[in-house]
């Protein structure tokens, strides 16, 4: 049974088609949802949460329809909205515990889970202060904490790095990745920045103007294992010839060559070849294609709105 499934999912706001007959089938894991602003990312997430009603089509989480089984679905998910959602005149502890109680946790359990969650997301003494005094980074953490406090099976994060400075962005992405890997919680994270998704997720869904562009494992997009660039301090052509003799295809530049490496034996061949020819290896780099290269046209990057 798939984690997220949509069939012909359509959402229309007046004349604007936000989602256009979207068909998705996603297995549990850390999923990135990429698209330019206005591509329909938030709309999709909000429909999955029952915050919006689809115009046509259906969506399922855990095999349950999000409209007819809305309450059962929402019991098992956590949601971090893109927009501000914190009451600023209460403390993080008070707020997160309240949200845990709303999810049906008994008082003592709610308090325990709150302390635990706030510790995980890196909020310590500050958690007893009014949230008014919090930085954007701290507020984003609290938003994440309230989504996590009831131990959901799936987290829906809508632009979790929105408004953060580069350092805060890194922290948030690390946190998200840790939640995905260490806690084993499935996660759907939207972003308009491919680089973020690439760092955190193992599955990528690209949508544009409400239509699915591609849905695949990140590895399939980047071809991580394929191309290696080797730079030498002498003639790259000699090394290329050496490798070709051993059945390894290589394309040479002036001082570099690119070759398809399947296994460790190929690396050994490069090393042995360089040693035999008396060449110095300047660098051996996985010439991993960046996701941006693939989608430069489909998903133009835009600066994050602050």
């Amino acid at each position, binding site marked *: 049974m798939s984690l997220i499934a949509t069939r012909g999912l359509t959402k229309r706001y007046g004349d604007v088609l936000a989602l256009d007959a979207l068909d998705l089938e996603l297995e549990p894991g850390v999923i990135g949802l990429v698209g330019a602003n206005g591509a329909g990312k938030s709309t999709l997430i909000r429909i999955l*949460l029952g915050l919006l009603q689809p115009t046509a089509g259906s969506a399922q989480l855990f095999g349950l329809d999000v409209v007819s089984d809305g309450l059962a679905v*929402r*019991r098992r998910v956590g949601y971090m909205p893109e927009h501000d959602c914190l*009451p600023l005149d209460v403390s993080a502890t008070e707020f997160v515990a309240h949200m845990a109680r*709303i*999810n049906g946790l008994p008082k003592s359990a709610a308090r325990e889970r709150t302390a635990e969650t706030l510790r995980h997301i890196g909020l310590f003494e500050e958690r007893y202060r009014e949230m008014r005094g919090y930085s954007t980074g701290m507020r984003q953490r609290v938003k994440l904490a309230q989504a996590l406090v009831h131990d959901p099976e799936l987290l829906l994060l809508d632009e979790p790095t929105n408004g953060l400075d580069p350092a805060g962005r890194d922290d948030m992405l690390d946190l998200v990745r840790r939640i995905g890997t260490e806690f084993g919680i499935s996660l759907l994270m939207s972003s308009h920045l491919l680089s973020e998704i690439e760092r955190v997720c193992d599955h990528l869904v690209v949508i544009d103007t409400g239509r699915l562009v591609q849905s695949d494992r990140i590895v399939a997009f980047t071809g991580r294992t394929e191309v290696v660039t080797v730079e030498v301090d002498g003639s790259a052509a000699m090394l290329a010839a050496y490798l070709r003799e051993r059945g390894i295809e290589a394309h040479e530049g002036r001082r570099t060559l690119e070759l398809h490496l399947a296994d460790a034996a190929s690396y050994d061949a490069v090393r042995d070849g360089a040693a035999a020819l008396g060449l110095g290896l300047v660098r051996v780099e996985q010439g991993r294609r960046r996701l941006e290269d693939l989608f430069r046209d489909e998903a133009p990057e835009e600066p994050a709105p602050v």
Partner: protein
Amino acid sequence: MTLYAGGLRSAFGLGRRTSAKVIPFALAVLAFVPALVQVAVGALTSRLDADVDLFAHEDYFGYVQIILILFCAAVAPELVGRDQRDRSISLYFSRAVSRVDYALAKLAALVSVMLVLTLGPQMLLFVGNGMVEDDLDGYLRDSWDLLPPILAGALFLSAAIAGVGLAIASFVPRRAYATAAIVGVFVLTTSVAGILMETADVSFARYALLVSPLVWEGAILWFFGARPDPGSEIRDADFHGAVYAVAGVVTILATTALTIVRFRRMQA
């Protein structure tokens, strides 16, 4: 259930800074003042064997009505406006909370805190009057029949003010506007009804009473089996008391439905 409890807490500003607590607590205390005065005066004068009845049960709601309205105007926006302003409402609606339950929990919370202000002073007055009398048993025997109308009146009044206040507040997220709107609606309907009774044909104008806060007064007088004062609008309109009660219940149901519709349709 948690929403309800949370509503009670936020109504009195618990868990928040002191400034959030001042107004609700001050108004709550004010609502008790007449009862305290009556009991105190009763205690002082009981030795003189004079029967001083400054604030009677059937009139009490009338005295504190303006305090009740102000309290509602202060608290209702706090209950339903904050979640909309902070946009934390989408956190509730994305959890296992149905929108109808959300609306009803907020209403229940507001009715409950209103009950503190309506029932509380009445009970203080009742018990206080009993203590002042030398013969407590005798007092209870004579006066127990006051309890049903006190309970009914308190519940009726709490639900009516809360229903109207919450419906308005749910449509007006900005606190200052919501407070003004709630007070405004109560004042406006009262004065419109009053003016119509003065100027227009009574047989027609008296229906204006049914959509004004005077409904409560009429219904509560009926609960207590008391006659309205001569010259008052309620005397002039000459409805049967039950008409007020029905009009009040209709108001409560209609405003509750309105609040539910508001939250069902709300874009979270």
